[in-house]
Every structure is written in C-alpha cells, then in structure tokens.
C-alpha cells in the first residue's frame, strides 16, 4: 500500500493529476467500495456514494498536501460521504416515522446482492443495532483490520475513545447474537 501511495504522491507532485487519479481509482475502488457498503448496506446506494466519493477526490486532489497518509485521506472522504448519505436518509425517515436502521436490517432480507448465510445475516443485523460511531469503528476494525491509530486519523477521534467504542460494540453484538 505504501509503495503505491508513494508512487501516487510523486505523480501528484509532478502535476500529473490524471495519472495519479487513475492510479487511485485502480488501487482503491474496491477498498472504498467495501468501506462504503458496510455503512450504507445497499449496493445501489453504495454505487452512488462511491461515484460521489471519487468525484470529490478528483475535485480536491490538488488540495492533498501529503501531510496525512493517502489512504487515510481517501477513507475519510468515503466515510464522510457515507455518513452524509445516511443522515439525509435519516432526515427523510424522521418525516415518515421510520427507523432507518430497522429499514436497512429488513432490506438485507431481500437484497439480491447479499448472499450471506444465517450467521452472516445475523451479524449484519447485530451491527445495524449499533449507533453510527460504534458501527463505523467496529466495521473498520473487524472487517478492514485497520489499527486504532489509523481509524483515529480517519474519524478524527482519540484512540482511547475508539477502543472504548469498539469494546462496547463487541459487547452489544455478542449480547444481540446470544439473545436472538
């Protein structure tokens, strides 16, 4: 990951914006897709959010100064886009009186792009019971194997707070799995 990031940074320093962007696209499209997918759940919504994320990356690529790691910067954009998308959905749910997380859990049942077994479905439903922050931390730690200091850079939260969030999230998921 670091070699590719360095290559992209060199391209950016040399003003080769298009080449750098194509490299980012090729290297990170899948990683960012799964990051977004675990937050917004539906494939179609993920596709929209991912496209918006890459448009944001393209529009702001000249502002990337290289102070932070490239993948941290990209993950942050993807996470912010996903949260903004969920917030918009929640606002709509507020007016219709629906709970968005319950809606997402129900959506899993009929999603043609979810082919998980009973255990996977149960785990996803358990994750959807969590508050957004705990859900984000759990996904990044459990599925992406990111370190707490990396998650800290992406979410701009202290590692101590993240560890506490993760611990609470695991506890809640275990409780859900045992009780359902």
């Amino acid at each position, binding site marked *: 990951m670091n070699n590719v990031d360095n290559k992209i940074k060199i391209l950016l320093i040399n003003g080769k914006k298009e080449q750098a962007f194509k490299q980012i696209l090729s290297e990170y499209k899948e990683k960012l897709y799964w990051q977004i997918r*675990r937050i917004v759940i539906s*494939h179609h919504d993920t596709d929209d959010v991912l496209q918006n994320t*890459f*448009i944001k990356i393209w529009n702001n690529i000249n502002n990337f100064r290289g102070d932070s790691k490239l993948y941290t910067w990209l993950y942050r954009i993807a996470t912010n886009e996903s949260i903004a998308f969920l917030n918009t959905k929640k606002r709509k749910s507020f007016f219709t009186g629906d709970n968005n997380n319950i809606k997402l859990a129900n959506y899993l049942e009929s999603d043609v792009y979810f082919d998980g077994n009973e*255990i996977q479905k149960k*785990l*996803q439903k358990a994750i959807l019971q969590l508050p957004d922050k705990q859900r984000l931390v759990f996904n990044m730690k459990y599925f992406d194997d990111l370190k707490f200091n990396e998650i800290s850079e992406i979410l701009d939260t202290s590692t101590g707070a993240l560890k506490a969030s993760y611990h609470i999230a695991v506890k809640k998921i275990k409780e859900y799995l045992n009780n359902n």
Partner: protein
Amino acid sequence: MIMIDLEKNKINSGFNVPNNYFDNLDKTILSKIQHQYNDKNNNILQRTIIYTISIAASLLFIFNITSYNNASYKNNDYYDEDYILNDDFIIDESINIDIANNDNKISNFEIEEFILNDDDIYTINQ
C-alpha cells in the same frame, strides 16, 4: 440457536456485487467526471456569453446617452433653458424667421408647421 464466536472465527460480511462491477467502475467514474467537466465548461461559456452581452448592452446604452447629450448640448452658445418648450424640443435661434416684424407675422399654426417630429429642432429669430 446459532453460536458465534466473533474473535475465534472471523465472519465475512456476506455482501456481494454484480458481475464485472469493478471492471466497469473505472470507465463509469471517469466518464462521470468528464461529463461534470464538460458541464462546468459549458456553464462557464454560457456565463461568459451572458456577461459579454450584458456589458456590451450597458456600454451601448451609456454611449447612446452620451451621444444624445453631446448632440443636445454641443452648441452651448445657443442653449438657453428659456427656449426649451418640452424635454424633446429645443428652439434654435439659427433659423431666420422674423416673427417680431408685424408685417410678416407667423401664426401659432405656422410655427407648428416647423415641427416635423419630436426630434426636430426649429429656431425662431426673436
């Protein structure tokens, strides 16, 4: 009841994607960015055209006003507020009509004959 041990057995998310989704993704995103770029350029072009027309119209308007004022006031020697009958109508003294002479009176009707249209200027020699 299904027993799950989160730590011991790593569980995958279970999500799937349509066939060839990632193969076509580059093309889709690059074409969307190109589309956005074209839209932006078209907007800039449209705005430039509108601004140019607006500026040209404003300049033309200002030029016309200036020309009109110059035409009206360029001969200041003859300009006298007393001779202005209305906004569009200025009496010029250069036309030599002797209405002071009783032998050669010109009726109001005849004076009006000199007014060809609103923009015309006629003069009366007092």
